[in-house]
């Protein structure tokens, strides 16, 4: 009796388990996908073809009942065919990136069952991947680049003609002269660091202009200037800058190339080296102007510990709080670029800053106008008039980038 009960239970369990298994696709019922198309992918360098299709009737979203779609590619309608890719069921698109620009390709798409039977649709084509001159999805980038460039060039031309272009004085610039004077009075050297900025960083270029101002003051007062570098190319540019600056007040004899030295390209190796220079040479003033990472606080705290007056400036947003906490003056972000313009009065720098300023003014007005429009559109939408909301959203979408 027990054996009979056990057998019945086993049979019942097996039947229940079998009932939960998906019904396999019966032979002969696998249908191919419909409406297969293959077209050149837009806005690329001719390196892709977009293949799309309509789902096979057997593709009902069950992965155990329908495996997926195999996409085959051939240089001719007659073949030979090679597999370009495979996507799971439910997908209706595939981008073939294994193609070359200018070549002709034909495609077919096969619905594949779990037992690897396939039902093919196609071939379709020819599809010829071609490079596009313009990426139409980036028209907004083109418009903004053109607008910004126009404003900057316009202001540069005005500056070149000698038109007086006003820039407000940047707080902290006076501190540069004060710091050099204080170090001179104390008979101590001045240390200047670019941080981990490379020559291609705009902030490093701006820092070179400020270094020139500092070096001129050092040459006038006969104060030693130390510039330890993380990047050898920045070091070369700094040597050029300081050498020219020392010649300006007629003191090229004071220029020491060895004072503008290379330490290492390792972040914390550089920080350790600068710390060592600070604690041993005890500079009277330290300038941290450039691009900094985690070494910013280590170096500025060390500078603070030896009692140096410290002036910092960077566009590295994460490091600015540490400079503000540990330095006497901090130039925040674009203030540093503005400071270099204020010092140098070079038409190109001045024009760039003024052009950006006009652009910022346009942004301020634009944000304010859009805030009013957005608020009105939400209110009107609640009142049953969604037209303005659609316009507001369309404007927002125009700024989307790919």
């Amino acid at each position, binding site marked *: 009796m027990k054996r009979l009960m056990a057998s019945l239970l086993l049979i019942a369990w097996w039947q229940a388990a079998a009932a939960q298994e998906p019904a396999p696709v019966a032979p002969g019922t696998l249908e191919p996908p419909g409406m297969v198309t293959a077209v050149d992918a837009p806005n690329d360098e001719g390196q892709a073809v977009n293949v799309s299709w309509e789902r096979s009737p057997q593709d009902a979203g069950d992965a155990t009942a329908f495996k997926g779609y195999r996409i085959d590619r051939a240089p001719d309608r007659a073949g030979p065919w090679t597999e370009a890719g495979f996507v799971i069921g439910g997908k209706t698109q595939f981008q073939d990136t294994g193609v070359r620009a200018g070549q002709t390709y034909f495609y077919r798409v096969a619905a594949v069952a779990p037992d690897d039977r396939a039902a093919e649709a196609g071939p379709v084509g020819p599809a010829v991947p071609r490079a596009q001159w313009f990426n139409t999805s980036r028209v907004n980038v083109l418009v903004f*680049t053109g607008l910004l460039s126009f404003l900057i060039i316009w202001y540069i031309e005005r500056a070149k003609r000698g038109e007086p272009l006003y820039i*407000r004085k940047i707080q902290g610039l006076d501190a540069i002269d004060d710091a050099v004077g204080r170090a001179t009075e104390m008979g101590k050297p001045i240390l200047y660091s670019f941080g981990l900025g490379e020559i291609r960083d705009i902030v490093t270029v701006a820092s070179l202009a400020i270094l020139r101002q500092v070096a001129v003051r050092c040459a006038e007062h006969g104060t030693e200037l130390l510039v330890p570098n993380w990047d050898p190319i920045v070091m070369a540019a700094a040597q050029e800058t300081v050498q020219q600056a020392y010649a300006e007040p007629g003191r090229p004899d004071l220029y020491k190339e060895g004072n503008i030295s290379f330490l290492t390209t390792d972040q914390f190796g550089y920080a350790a080296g600068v710390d060592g220079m600070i604690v041993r040479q005890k500079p009277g003033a330290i300038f941290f102007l450039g691009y900094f990472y985690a070494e910013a606080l280590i170096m500025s705290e060390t500078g603070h510990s030896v009692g140096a007056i410290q002036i910092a400036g960077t566009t590295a947003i994460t490091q600015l709080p540490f400079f503000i906490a540990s330095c006497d003056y901090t130039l925040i972000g674009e203030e540093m670029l503005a400071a270099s313009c204020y010092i140098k009065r070079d038409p190109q720098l001045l024009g760039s800053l003024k052009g950006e300023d006009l652009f910022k003014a346009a942004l301020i007005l634009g944000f304010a106008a859009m805030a009013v429009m957005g608020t009105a559109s939400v209110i009107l939408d609640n009142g049953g008039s969604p037209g303005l909301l659609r316009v507001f959203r369309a404007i927002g979408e125009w700024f989307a980038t790919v």
Partner: protein
Amino acid sequence: MTSVIGTWIAAGLTLAIFSFLYRDNPAYKFAEHLYVGVSAAFAVLYTWAFDIWPMLVEPMILGRGVADPVDRWILIVPACFGLLMLARWIPRVAWLSRWAISLTVGIAAGLGITGQIQGILLPQIRGTLLPMNSIDNIILVVGVITTLVYFYFSVEHKGLVKAGARIGVVFIMASFGASFGYTVMARISLLIGRLNFLVTDWLHLFR
């Protein structure tokens, strides 16, 4: 045995660097000079092994991995610009190094303009186009506008501009405060990692 020696050297150098917290001392000086020297030497080897050899010597001189002769010999151009940097050692032709520097700066500026507009400026503009129908949106829009006012350099900070700039400074400082706290947390986790190495890997106090 090798790993034990390595652990002891690492622990000793860690303590030597930490000793700077007390004051400058010979142990710190040794560790500092060792670190700077080793990292500089490593950078030279790294540049040779990962830049010059695979990106210049192998494709151009040995002809590996390049089928098109144009792709192979076009590398002479960057190679020449790289050699121009060495002209700094010869005072009479030191000015030639400026060509290489100019090229680097020019390319970086050109690429940077579109990169910044596409990657930073446009997404931020899009994120700021908001209706003023929630506290979050009001804070965001007012914060962006007043911060832009602070960084507007063409007018003196007086009157309405001054008021706007001051509000902008409040937003900037609030952002810096949050960033400060966040970064300090990250630094403390680095410290914990180093102390964990000392007490676990070196002293074996914990498993």
